[in-house]
């Protein structure tokens, strides 16, 4: 199974699935040599199976697709609308984008999403940080610098997506998290000892008790195959890294997973399977779910994280809610993130490409 790098396997005469056409690619997940048509078929079919087996959607539901313009969400939008048509899911699909207000990055990627709106015929809703919070990321970075800015962006985005979804009156939010992302999260939660997150990071649907459940139809889909699909289908997507965290993509854990994949492609699926099967007692106490006294968003504290951060910004104390000791909610907040420049164990601090 573990072939030495650089040794090209012999090219087969025919696709190992249909046995008729010439193989065009080596499927990253299985290393089978298959033709382009069969690749489309297995790729789409696997996602269809995941959706059906896990009952991700019900007929008649309104579903928003978190669209950043990146490869994952673009392929998700394309494949979901395709499958919805082909298999009669009976879904009303929408594109939901968040405008963080990052000049030179998000404005360009939003153009891509707007083209997708027309190409796939899916209505688009854009919610912006400026409208929701009164601040753009550009303004925030100007105030606080390039340290901890990803904390702001991440906290704000999570809430922005929920608010956008509420505006669209959708029943579910589908995000483009792929198998590599989930495998990385499993590893990171082990590395940092977060057993509570370890137990739920592999669930395909989350937040079922919250206002809008989220699901990950790409849970078992390899990043490489998504890129391949987008490449062969010539899908229109935006592939620039966020200008405020240009090195975010080179975490230890991500590199490790890429090395693993090279050595044994199924390792990514194995990590996810491990994550699903960990024996974690369900009695592990979960934080109590309440609502933010200020904005009404779900929160385990008096104020939700976004309100704490926002209060800090508005009062000119941007460290509020970042340092542990000075939180508004006397409990210490644990979202301490390291600065961007240094090499980190995690890669996607801020979800540059998808939400």
């Amino acid at each position, binding site marked *: *199974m*573990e072939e030495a790098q650089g040794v090209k396997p012999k090219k087969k005469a025919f696709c190992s699935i249909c046995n008729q056409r010439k193989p065009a690619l080596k499927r990253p997940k299985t290393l089978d040599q298959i033709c382009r048509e069969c690749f489309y078929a297995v790729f789409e079919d696997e996602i269809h199976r995941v959706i059906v087996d896990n009952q991700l959607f019900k007929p008649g539901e309104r579903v928003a697709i978190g669209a950043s313009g990146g490869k994952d969400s673009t392929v998700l939008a394309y494949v979901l609308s395709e499958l919805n048509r082909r298999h009669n899911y009976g879904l009303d699909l929408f594109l939901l984008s968040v405008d963080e207000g990052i000049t030179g990055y998000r404005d360009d990627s939003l153009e891509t999403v707007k083209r997708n709106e027309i190409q796939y015929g899916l209505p688009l809703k854009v919610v912006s940080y400026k409208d929701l919070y009164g601040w753009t990321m550009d303004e925030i970075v100007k105030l606080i610098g390039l340290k901890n800015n990803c904390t702001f962006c991440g906290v704000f985005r999570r809430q922005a997506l929920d608010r956008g979804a509420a505006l669209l009156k959708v029943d579910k939010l589908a995000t483009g998290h792929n198998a590599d992302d989930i495998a990385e999260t499993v590893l990171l939660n082990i590395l940092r*000892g977060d057993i509570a997150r370890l137990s739920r990071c592999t669930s395909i649907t989350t937040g079922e008790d919250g206002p809008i459940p989220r699901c990950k139809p790409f849970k078992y889909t390899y990043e490489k195959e998504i890129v391949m699909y987008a490449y062969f289908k010539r899908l229109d997507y935006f592939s620039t890294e966020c200008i405020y965290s240009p090195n975010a993509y080179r975490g230890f854990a991500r590199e490790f997973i890429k090395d693993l994949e090279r*050595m044994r492609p199924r390792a990514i699926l194995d*990590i996810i399977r*491990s*994550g699903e099967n*960990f024996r974690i007692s369900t009695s*592990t106490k979960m934080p109590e779910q309440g609502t933010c006294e200020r904005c009404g968003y779900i929160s385990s504290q008096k104020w939700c994280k976004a309100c704490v951060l926002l209060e800090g910004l508005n009062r000119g104390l941007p460290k509020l809610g970042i340092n542990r000791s000075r939180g508004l909610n006397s409990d210490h907040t644990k979202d*301490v993130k390291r600065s961007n420049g240094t090499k980190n164990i995690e890669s996607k601090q801020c979800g540059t490409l998808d939400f």
Partner: protein
Amino acid sequence: MACGSGGSCQSGCYKDNGDEEDQHSQKKETANGVATSGNDVNNQDLCVKCKSNETIATANPAAAAIASGGDGGRFCAECFRSNLFGKFRFAVTSNAMISPSDNVLVAFSGGTSSRVALQFVHEMQCKAQKNFDASRDRSLPVFGVGVAFVDESDVYPVPSHQFDEAIEDMKLIVSNLTPPRKGFHVAPIASIYSSDSGDGHDRLKELVNAVSDVTGKDDLLLHLRMLSLQKIARQNGYTKLVLGSCTSMIACHVLTATVKGQGYSLAADIQYVDARWEIPVVLPLRDCLKQELDMLCCLDSLNVVKVLHNPHSGINGLVSSFVKLLQEENPSRECTIVRTAGKLTPFHFNRIPETDDHAHLASRRRQKKFNLKPNESLPPESFCPICNSPLSKSDLLSLNDVENGHSSAETFGAKCCLSCQFQILPKEPSSMEDFYLLLPQPIVARAKDGNHCNQRWLREQIQDCLLSDSEDGT
């Protein structure tokens, strides 16, 4: 919640950094000639615990260099040693690993971890002996200790003179650890094949070579090594098997198991006690870092035998270099990994089985056991015949599909965990047949036993409705 304990580690590090700065400023003061007393020893060179002796970093820089940034700069050799031994002793007593009537076999590879395990077990035995000699009623016998080395030269050939030298060195190490006297057992890994069939060596080689996956080969050897240790223990009347697995190794295992999809069974492998084996296995060095063990070996000039070491390959190698990298980035990373995995729910066999042995009540009273409540209503676990890991429900479901009407090799294959199926078993049915014939008896037997065990449990469930005592109902 982003980095629960990661955050706390960080703050710990910050604190350490702060301390260092303090120390540096003190140093500057003294360097400026403001020496406070006539004492030559600077403050920062003193052990943080006893505050009287020089730290290892000062007294023995060579040893401290092994664990850079570790305890070397904080403790003196004496306090470091007692701290490390304390971790060992705590693990032993709080998990009831060794009782006075036990006969303990220490698995010795020649490396630093098992060397320290051997040393500590010896020290504990010496103390027990002293107590025995001093006590009037002599009610507590002294546990026995033996040492086992598994010779893997069949698979990883070593020049014979080197091998003989290494064995001599080990003999010397063991014979120096007296009194009390310790037995030393060397067994080739091929000894898992029963002695009457003399072709054990060839069969073993063939078996290992039949595994095409590098990682799978590595792991198969690990499982076979455990079988050999169990056999040595059983044949020589030992009641416990001590392994030198330290935090660093366990951290690697946590990640390799995760990567291989063994998330379900992982919790079984990383506890202090693993009694799923006939001879229970204990890991008293579970809380000790590799660096600490290396440093102790250097400090106390504990001899290690290097020749017989094989680096991990494949996924296991990749993971160990990854963990090494992480550990350099954050010195508490390995502990955090093991702590995370420690929060997974252990299995019922992860404790020393209770015995009705009232003779040693005196010793038992002292054991602060962290009791794992046995859940009696659970069915006995089914185990993978190759790696002996408990099978998850999803594994078992796939098993039921291939219960009847297949060749024994196929049935065997279906009983293995998904991980072993992928990385150890051959894919081709014909090579699977060959592979099955090459397997040693204990593995084949385990596949058959598993069946009986399950059958018995099912029978117990319906006992009250059965009209006959025999299996077939006649």
